[in-house]
């Protein structure tokens, strides 16, 4: 309704001055007699207003969307299987590669003088990662998946003193195998995150298709591309990671062409074999990648592909 001051003839007394009112107000009588509405506001009359929490305010929206999915289709089921498998392998690799020593809870338990608490927390974190992950995968629950990611990452946060240490004592001491196991662990962690988020993504897509929100042409081609990307991308990432981790072998190999003695010294160097060697490797690899972007190589590749075809 308009505001009271702009309503015009609000005071209607003047309407009756010196006049005969010919009829009563039929509508009013009728309305008063027939109105059966109560003044309570029904639940469905009020629009749902969602006030964002502070986290949502920072991220500009809900971090996790709550959405009901229809029963999973074949693609989603296969992703669930792959995701469960990668979670299982990942948990096992985490268990193998991540000792409790160096973690905050290990230090805390030592301070308290109760040694098993640290180990218990360590295993609990891994169990949260495993069980939460399985629950999230089967129920397609994003909160459980997020808890699983956090737990599996948190368990690796420890002061390691540059050396690769294992959670299991019987694993080989060979540096190459150690690094390959590390790369495997990292690839499986990323794969687990990717495939489990793919479950949500494809569930949303499938629900949208089945509710008619979106129409998908040639679904098989699209899922085939995704499956191919799932196999190619980890391989590429693993290769890049290998380049960075084996920098203590790659640099000496190049130096060895000119000076075998210096190359040998480099190979034995503590700095190159430690985490700082990995950092150096990362810098070198990503300098190459950055220079590819700097010369707009992706664009040129795309232009070339478009022209060639």
């Amino acid at each position, binding site marked *: 309704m308009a505001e009271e001051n702009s309503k015009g003839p609000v005071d209607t007394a003047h*309407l009756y001055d010196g006049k005969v009112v010919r009829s009563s107000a039929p509508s009013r009588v009728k309305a008063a007699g027939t109105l059966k509405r109560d003044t309570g506001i029904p639940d469905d009359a009020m629009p749902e207003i969602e006030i964002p929490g502070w986290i949502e305010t920072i991220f500009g929206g809900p971090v996790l969307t709550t959405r009901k999915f229809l029963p999973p289709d074949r693609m989603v089921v296969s992703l669930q299987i792959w995701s469960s498998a990668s979670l299982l392998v990942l948990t096992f690799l985490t268990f193998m590669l991540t000792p409790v020593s160096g973690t905050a809870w290990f230090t805390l338990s030592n301070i308290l003088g109760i040694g098993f608490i640290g180990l218990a927390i360590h295993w609990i974190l891994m169990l949260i990662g495993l069980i939460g992950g399985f629950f999230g995968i089967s129920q397609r629950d994003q909160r459980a998946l997020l808890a699983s990611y956090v737990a599996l990452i948190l368990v690796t946060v420890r002061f390691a003193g540059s050396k690769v240490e294992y959670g299991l004592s019987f694993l080989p001491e060979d540096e190459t195998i150690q690094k390959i196991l590390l790369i495997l662990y990292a690839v499986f962690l990323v794969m687990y995150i990717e495939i489990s988020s793919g479950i949500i993504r494809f569930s949303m897509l499938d629900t949208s298709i089945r509710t008619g929100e979106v129409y998908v042409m040639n679904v098989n081609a699209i899922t085939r591309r995704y499956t191919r990307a799932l196999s190619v991308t980890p391989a590429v990432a693993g290769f890049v990671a290998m380049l960075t981790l084996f920098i203590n072998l790659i640099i000496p190999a190049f130096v060895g062409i000119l000076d075998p003695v210096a190359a040998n010294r480099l190979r034995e160097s503590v700095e190159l074999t430690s985490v700082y060697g990995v950092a150096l490797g990362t810098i070198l690899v990503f300098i190459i990648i950055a220079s590819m972007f700097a010369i707009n190589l992706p664009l040129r590749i795309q232009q070339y592909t478009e022209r*060639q075809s």
Partner: protein
Amino acid sequence: MAWSRKSAMFASLSIAMYLLGLVLRNQQLVTVAVVLLSFLTWAALRTAHGDVASTGKRMEDAAMDEGVQLQSIVAMRKTSSARVFEDGEIDVTVRIQNRSGVAKVLELRDRVPEVMRVKKGANYVLMEIGPKRETEISYTIETPLRGFYTIGPVCIRVQDELGLFHNEKEILLYDDFLVFPKMEDIKDAMVKSRVPKIFTGAVNIRNPGEGSNFYNLREYIPGDPMKKVNWKATARQDGKMMVNEFERDAVSDVILIVDSRAVSETGPVSRNSLVYSTRAAASLTQYFLSRRDSVGLVVYGDEIVSVDRDTGKKQLYIILTKLAGAMAKGNTPLKIVTNRIMPHIHRGSPIIILSPLEDDPTIIDAVRDLRARNFEVTVLSPSSLEFEFDARRIDRTGYEVLKTERDILITELRGLGAYVMDWEPDMLLFTALAGARGF
């Protein structure tokens, strides 16, 4: 190239892990970070070019922002109709061409107006389109509300398979269409002019002179034709000659005045006074024009828009177009409208005012002036109070007070000799009109 939330999360996670790994000398964390960064880099390489020249970029480079992949995508649209009535349907067909030699996975969304509902098909399509191929998507939209609308633009997005980065392009392809207010069949709940039309206008009067419907009896006046003498009535009047008088068939000038002031849109979007008024005006126009009367329209809100009286189907579409475009704006008083149009309309012509009768202190004066000049005034008043009360926007006390004020105003208008109908939301137009005329 745009980042998705996922890629942003990956990037921040990898940087955090990398730095933490260096601080804690933890190769495990550093390795995970490197793998994550490689994931991102590979996806970015495959999605788009590196946008390294954000500053000092040449004009021609700006076109490249959408990515090479999208430059060869062309869209064309065809709609089944550019004019449709409320609750009608429009079939839309969008043809997509991939002029490059590389297959592409595209997300395509053809933007439809918010009030429209996609009834059949989908305007949002995910597709793989082969090299040098074209495909067609079609969907049907429902048009629930009158107005001028535009379909478009066509938004296209291409992203990497893992959903990390995407490029978007808007193809500026627009199609306008018009939704006319829907019409009811109102048959005989009608207004007739008491006086014949002075100017015949474009359509000839079918029965010039006398009509065929009995009107009343009166005493014989010399010159009356003998065939009009009612002999039975003459016999009953002791020899005083009585003649039959007939209602004159004539073409009327009907003037419709639609209130489109801001206040007329009070209530829900699909149920408010303006929606009802425009539908009523459309129905009345159709009825009168089908009876070969001439109809004029005045729509007033922030300005006065008028359509001069005329007849025929063309006039119907002219009026429907004006009604479709009526926007709830401004607060022009009715008195100004009537003062402006009165000199141009014939006395005795029926005037139908469609207004919620709110926020206008000049209503009574305006109707009094019209009645004083012998215009036959009918007021159809869709009650915005009812709309608001139904939508639970006012409480019962407020409703009762405002309703009483409204009833007093309506009573006053009735006292001036106008036919007034308090049109409640659930009432059909036919019933409302019948109520107004006291039928």
